[in-house]
């Protein structure tokens, strides 16, 4: 019951190490499950209290791309990210990062949760939060050294928040808080980033700043996977898109997967969203034509 994605025709790369080798039939069906792919998800099903949230998901993400995960509310977008990062248990399936389990790839993977998931009254400064991105590199039980603090400061600077380093985080606007979160993710110096709704509820200048940072990350060779809710900007911001509604409806380059048919299957009968979507599709095809 796997949805055939446009990506599955990509050229196959180095074979999986024999130690971890799945049955040949599985390998044949998914030739790109490889050490080349920063994220390779196979047959992943996630359920909360026996109710499936994600069903039999297959996905391979190309390196050095920006990928948007799109779908209606409750489609399992955040759950997808959390299941990849072992934050929620998977009922079935496996997830590999460059051909390794998450445990071994942890320091190469960065995560930026939704802004609403934390208490912004917490008594820390913007710089403290950015420094948290360095904790893994620093290691257990050691204090944050000056060089790590400087690295975190440089990340704040990259998102335009250097002047706010000593502010307590509750004194920042929503957009500024989002930038601090982004700075913390940058401080992880990861090669693969998961970002949950980085553009949610931010002002226009923050949105531009985030886009700039994402492109910069891609230039430097990183891969970014974002949960994204604004269909209007998918084409402009991202290379690839994954349409999710409990299962993967389509995935691949935005221009290929963004069709009225796939959007309809993803969003069902939600009319306002569909209007938005068809507008986006029209604009996308104008852009290609």
């Amino acid at each position: 019951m796997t949805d055939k994605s446009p990506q599955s025709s990509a050229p196959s790369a180095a074979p999986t190490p024999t130690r971890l080798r799945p049955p040949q039939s599985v390998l044949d069906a998914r030739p790109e499950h490889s050490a080349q792919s920063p994220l390779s998800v196979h047959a992943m099903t996630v359920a909360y209290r026996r109710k499936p949230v994600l069903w039999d998901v297959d996905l391979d993400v190309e390196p050095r791309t920006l990928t948007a995960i799109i779908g209606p509310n409750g489609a399992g977008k955040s759950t997808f990210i959390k299941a990849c990062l072992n934050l929620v248990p998977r009922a079935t399936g496996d997830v590999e990062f460059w051909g390794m389990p998450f445990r071994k790839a942890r320091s190469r993977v960065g995560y930026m949760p939704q802004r609403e998931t934390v208490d912004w009254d917490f008594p820390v400064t913007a710089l403290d939060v950015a420094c948290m991105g360095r904790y893994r590199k620093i290691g257990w039980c050691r204090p944050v050294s000056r060089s790590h603090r400087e690295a975190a400061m440089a990340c704040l600077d990259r998102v335009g928040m250097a002047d706010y380093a000593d502010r307590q985080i509750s004194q920042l606007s929503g957009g500024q808080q989002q930038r601090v979160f982004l700075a913390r993710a940058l401080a992880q110096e990861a090669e693969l980033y998961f970002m949950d709704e980085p553009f949610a509820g931010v002002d226009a200048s923050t949105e531009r700043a985030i886009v700039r940072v994402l492109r910069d990350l891609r230039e430097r060779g990183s891969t970014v996977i974002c949960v994204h809710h604004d269909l209007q900007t998918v084409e402009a911001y991202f290379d690839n898109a994954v349409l999710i509604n409990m299962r993967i409806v389509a995935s691949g380059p935005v221009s290929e997967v963004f069709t009225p048919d796939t959007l309809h299957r993803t969003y069902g009968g939600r009319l306002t969203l569909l209007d938005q979507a068809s507008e986006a599709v029209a604009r996308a095809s104008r852009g290609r034509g």
Partner: protein
Amino acid sequence: MPQTLHNFMVLDFAPLLAGLLAAVSCGLLGNFLVLRKLSLMGDAISHSVLPGLVIAFLIAQSRAPLPMLLGALAAGVATVVLVELLKRLGKLEPGAAMGVVFSVLFALGVLLLEHRALRGMDLDADCVLHGQIEYRIWAAAPTELSAYLSLDTWATAPVQLRILLISLVISAVFVVVFFKELRIASFDPQASTAAGISASVMHYALMIVVAVATVASFEAVGSILVIAMLICPAATARLLTDRLKSQLWVSVGVAATSAVGGYYAGAFVPGLFGLDAVNAAGAITVVSGLLLLLAVLFSPWHGVIARAVRQRRVRLDVLRDDLLGALYRIEESGEDGAELADLRAVLGSGTQLAVRSASRQGLVSGDRGRIALTDKGRAESAGLIRRHRLWEHYLVGEAGFRPDHVHETAERLEHLREQTPRRGPDADPHGKPIPPESDPNTDPSIDPRGA
């Protein structure tokens, strides 16, 4: 050694030190309970300690400190695990899970105490409630000052002191060594877990250390003081600072102050009214509550009074802005000022205050009751009107408001000196001219904390 000092060592030293050690170790850990909104957990652990003590007594058939401590610790850990299980399996919210666990376990302890076999155990309800630190007398305290240099002397001190000291060391080492991990796991459990610092491991570790501190303090000072000491110092410190590190230091200071202050207040204050001294643990708890109340009222930033002052200042600024705006519009219509009574008719009851504040700042001059803008006031008010009309233009042009709907919104937005819409046209939607950008000196950016 003088007699008074010897008396102090015999009567007051051990209770005072016990209260101090218990308060500081609980106060330190309480920070993380309060930040993680788990304040009730201390409550739960300290109540469930009772059945632990009783069962340990039944098994060991003695009141030796070690079995008591182990029994209580086991009960504390069991509470933590039971609460987690109830949350997960019973689908209960954390508060309900903690409430159920500790009330049931406490009741179990009380029932067991009623048991005949335990009549001999001198663990009564009074002791459970507020402990008996006053009775920790160090009868063997030597009279010679030099004797205190020898470890053998200290070995004769009440054993509770040693237990409390160990518990304080455990708490302090835990917080210092795992400071970074506690911070990220409390602030953002998901990112923490994803980065390899498992938030649930940190949770259980914290709970076990809390259980140790609670159990060690419980025997000495009773459950009321334990609960208060877990929460009050941290809550007080949170109001006084916005940095986690300084919050930890402040909470330790508050805990120590309430322990020492409460001990002496309990001993001497009732005497002022001709009453007997009251229970020390109760007095310490009351003092820590009073300190919290003081912080709620007088904290320089989060306090009730500071907030009221700030709000009053903002209201005055708004009134003064409104006065300047009114005068500017009056000048636009050709007049060169207005009578105070006319202004009051437009601006309402605060006019007098606003005029006084504006004239103190040299923005308006009042000649024989006639109020007019000074040059400085004119520049200031031009900036204000500029912001007002730019906002009106923005609301109509960009946000799709109808021109007759924007005045009230612009009337609020004009007071914001940051993020005014840029580069407007020369006139607002109603055809009124927009004053040109003024000297940046008259357009200072305000303190973004909201003052």
